[in-house]
């Protein structure tokens, strides 16, 4: 990664990085690979036998006799809260662990529901001690029954007519969605480096949470119902419900809107147009139905999950109240038809319930501080 990370880390991080590659490819590829690729990529990389051999022969030539004595007092990071000494990828891993430690996914197999809780542990724990932690449910999803999905197939059919028009977006968004939000607010790895890292973190955390939720609420894909679906991308191996793309896109949108609108909760008014990041998130979600790999109901559930996770990350990083969402995959709209996932539907159904304000996470709060300064 170090050697090729410079020029190619940004663009190639997404597709090659697996679950964490997308969000981390950008932050690490840019800052470490580009301007500092020479000094950091070389000495810290040791990626090739040729380099290693050269460094070895150079040492042999100049080090002279060395019995093992020390000459330096090592410099250390000055504060446990500061992560700047780490590469972007390492920072990402540290922060991901911190955030995931505050989230919990549970399932009720008989009721076919799954929930996400926020329950941040104290930073300092004592071995064997009992810690009292208040868990707050932030999202509850009920899986749809097959009969409901069969009704939803008509939407998959209708949206298929838009495939040729959206081919580029669909294939691109199969591997990365963050650049699409970079068209809404200025996002890059220099002026908005902390924000960029934060949004990448949001996506990563979402992926881990949604994958466990998908596992608990496993639901068949459109292709499982009819051979005529013929998606234009390969159907993923995991559950259709909830849509991961919807969850990630809406979570990113919620956090981006926090910076754009300077409000701790996204303002959604029925009948009014959604804020632009949410319109983009909606587009990304619907593209998956156009592609033939998701039902609208998946996107609806993913959107509710994403909003809850995005809001929770704002809560844990900026000290705001948690917002709970819920979605029943079997719900129908008012006139008895199976709901399509439209912007108007989202505006009319996104009604989060406020919860407590959790204690902020130390490292995440620092990242929020840095990101906030990028928008002032």
């Amino acid at each position, binding site marked *: 990664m170090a050697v090729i990370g410079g020029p190619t880390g940004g663009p190639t991080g997404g597709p090659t990085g697996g679950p964490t590659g997308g969000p981390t490819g950008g932050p690490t590829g840019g800052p470490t690979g580009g301007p500092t690729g020479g000094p950091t990529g070389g000495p810290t990389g040791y990626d090739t036998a040729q380099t290693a051999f050269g460094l070895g022969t150079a040492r042999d030539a100049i080090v002279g006799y060395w019995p093992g004595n020390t000459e330096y007092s090592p410099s250390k990071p000055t504060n446990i809260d500061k992560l700047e000494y780490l590469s972007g990828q390492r920072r990402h891993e540290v922060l991901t662990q911190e955030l995931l430690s505050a989230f919990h996914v549970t399932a009720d197999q008989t009721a076919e529901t799954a929930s996400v809780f926020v329950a941040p542990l104290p930073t300092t724990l004592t071995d064997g001690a009992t810690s009292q932690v208040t868990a707050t449910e932030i999202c509850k999803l009920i899986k749809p029954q097959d009969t409901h999905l069969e009704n939803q197939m*008509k*939407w998959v*059919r*209708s*949206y298929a*007519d*838009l*495939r*040729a*028009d959206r081919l580029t977006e669909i294939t691109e968004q199969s591997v990365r969605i963050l650049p699409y939000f970079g068209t809404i607010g200025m996002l890059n790895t220099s002026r908005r480096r902390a924000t960029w890292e934060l949004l990448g973190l949001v996506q990563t955390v979402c992926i881990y949470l949604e994958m466990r939720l998908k596992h608990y609420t496993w639901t068949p894909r459109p292709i499982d119902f009819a051979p005529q679906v013929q998606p234009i991308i390969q159907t993923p191996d995991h559950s259709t419900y909830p849509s991961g793309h919807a969850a990630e896109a809406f979570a990113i949108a919620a956090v981006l809107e926090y910076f754009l609108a300077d409000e701790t909760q996204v303002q959604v*008014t029925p*009948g*009014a*147009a*959604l804020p632009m990041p949410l319109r983009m998130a909606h587009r990304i979600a619907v593209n998956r139905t156009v592609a033939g790999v998701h039902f609208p109901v998946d996107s609806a559930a993913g959107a509710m999950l994403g909003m809850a996770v995005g809001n929770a990350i704002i809560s844990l990083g900026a000290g705001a109240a948690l917002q709970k969402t819920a979605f029943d995959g079997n719900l129908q709209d008012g006139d008895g*038809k199976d709901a*399509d996932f*439209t*912007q*108007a539907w989202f*505006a009319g159904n996104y009604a989060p319930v406020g919860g407590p304000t959790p204690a902020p996470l130390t490292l995440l709060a620092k990242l929020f501080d840095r990101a906030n300064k990028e928008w002032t």
Partner: protein
Amino acid sequence: MPWRDWAPFTGSPYVDWWEETGYRSSLNRDAQKYNFARSGLTFGQRGTFADFLPLPVEGPELAGDPYSAGNRDAALDSALESIAAFIPSDVLNDVDGNRARADFVSQAVRDKLPKVEDPETVIVGIVDVGMPLGHRRLRAADGSTRILSAWQQMSTQPMEDLAFGEELYKGDIDAALAAASGGTLHGALDEDAFNRATRVVDMDNTFGEREAARRAAHGAHVLDLAAGYDTDDPEDAARADKIKVIAVNIPSIDIVGNAGELLDGFVLSAYERILAIADAIWEKSCPQTSGAYRTVINMSLGRQAGPKTGVDLIPAYLRQIKRRRGAQGEMLNFTMPAGNDNLTRCNAVLEPSAQTAQSLNWRILPQDGSPNYVEVWTAPPQGADTLLSNPNTVDVQLVPPSGDPSPTVERLEGAPPVPFNVKSALGNSAAVYREVLLVNKNGDNPAAPFAPVWLLRHVFAVAPTHRARNDLETAPAGLWQIRITNRTDQTLQCQCSIQTDQGLLPTSGESVRSFFDDPGYWLYDSYVGTGDLLETYAYPSAVRGQRLNQDLRPALGHAAPSPVKRHGTINSTAAHNAVARVAGYRASDGRPAFYSSAGKGRLPDARLPDDDSGTTVQIEPLMSDALAPTVSFPTEDSPMLPGILASGGADGSVAALRGTSFAAPQAARLIAERLVDGDRPDWSERKRLFEEAQKLEDGLVVSDEVIAARRDFLRRPPLTDTVEVIGGGRVPRQGARRIDRRGA
């Protein structure tokens, strides 16, 4: 399987073919009310009127003649009635127990219509597909729509007092705009919600309308070019205030048919409705004043094969309505595209000399999921008596890739008089239809004397070469052949056109267009070995600074020019003088757009250079002047990128689309703006466009068809090169500056 003997048939060849071969039912949509239930209206219309009843024609009244003005009006009324009569009851809106015609405007509808109190207002009517109704460029400065009404013919929620579909009025559209914009006409528009609420986009039905949900929408582009204004610009806002729109969204190909089989009925209803609504608004707004708003109607649609002689239902209707309106002193203007088939090898002119036969190869491709059709029109020198007693004088046969040719008409002999309409079929895989029609040769020219002439129409129908259902017969792909035997003692001229053939679904590859595969037609330049696409005229210029007409130039190794022509590909629906036929040219160098229909390619009594040696060849004029475009507008404005810019599917977006569909609305816009300015409201659309072209062509002698080389207006002085001009000349681009990528 042998060909069946000739036998009479009734109805349209297209209808007969659909019914006989099961193609209609093979679409497997009969159970869906939304789709073909409403199609009955055009089956009826074409079946009982246009195809096998003699057509109404213009001309001096003849005593006791069935084609007198009164009888023509009655015949047209009968056609309109038949449209209403064929609307199935489950989608019909009964009005007092009667089926509503498109021109019926009930009191309930009148109550909803907006007022337009300025009698100088110009109405721009637009008949298209996928027109979104919320774009800012179609809204006034206060955010309210400038669309007075929009008939959504494809809506599945038929409304009371309307023949079919659903009609929205300015008040409805403004309410929907407000509802989808947070209660204000200026808010950000949730277009998905708005387009669904206004029936422009239908995701509820399997074959619902989707055009406006796409990045580039045909109707959005046309609507903007015809009547879009930026009302932030005070000058534009003032003009926009005087130009109002009446829109009709007709159904997409899915309903209209691969070959546009059902187009005419929807279009005719649309024209009727636009005029009826405009009149009703006038009566409501200007009750003290007789008259009507000045009106221009653009329709950027059409079918490729047809009579192209000015004789068909649409031209008959347009001439008649103009005549009626003319009595009121009001001028109606109609614009249509010239067509985009210039290089598709779908057009040929066979001219067998006396007592000879001539053949034409027709290549039908494999994996083609839709039927293929060719229409052959000819005017035999003999009259009806000969045709009906001795049909053998003109014999037309269809030859499959393997197997026997269709029977000659000699088989009809022995039982004269021969029925007007006969057919012979090869199982369910192919059929030949032969019709005898009496028309007025001078139908397009009201000043000319009535000149009855008998036309022979042949329609060749071939089944799809691929079908999903294996219980339906397919036709073999490969080289079919059309053979025409002329047993008269004069040269016969036969206009051959392959019918429109489009996919039923967006971007569907199920329909593959067939073509005339003649070895003498060269696609690419092998004369000088450049390999360039051979357009209508030689490029760069040939000897003596002239652009040679490629249609008159034999390919190397061939003695005569190919019968397959670039010239003559005019959109059949527009091939008459009741409309302006608008072609496209490239703004970069002034040449015709390669796809644009380029005219007749022949002038009466002309001798044209046939090669570089300077010799000339005598050519007979083609049947109809209406084969030539009227004028051309820019449809390409970048040397590298295709098309011109105008609105995309979403408000504020811009898409580049190419085609003469986007030339015609520029003409409509120009006419509307001139009318707003009070500039010669008495001029016909064609007269006005000729005059406009003359401004640019700098002294060009205006005519319907100019094929000689003309000075290149972009390259003077010095006059070192020439450029060919199609139609009466070129007219500069119209519309907002942004349609020109050069920013000029």
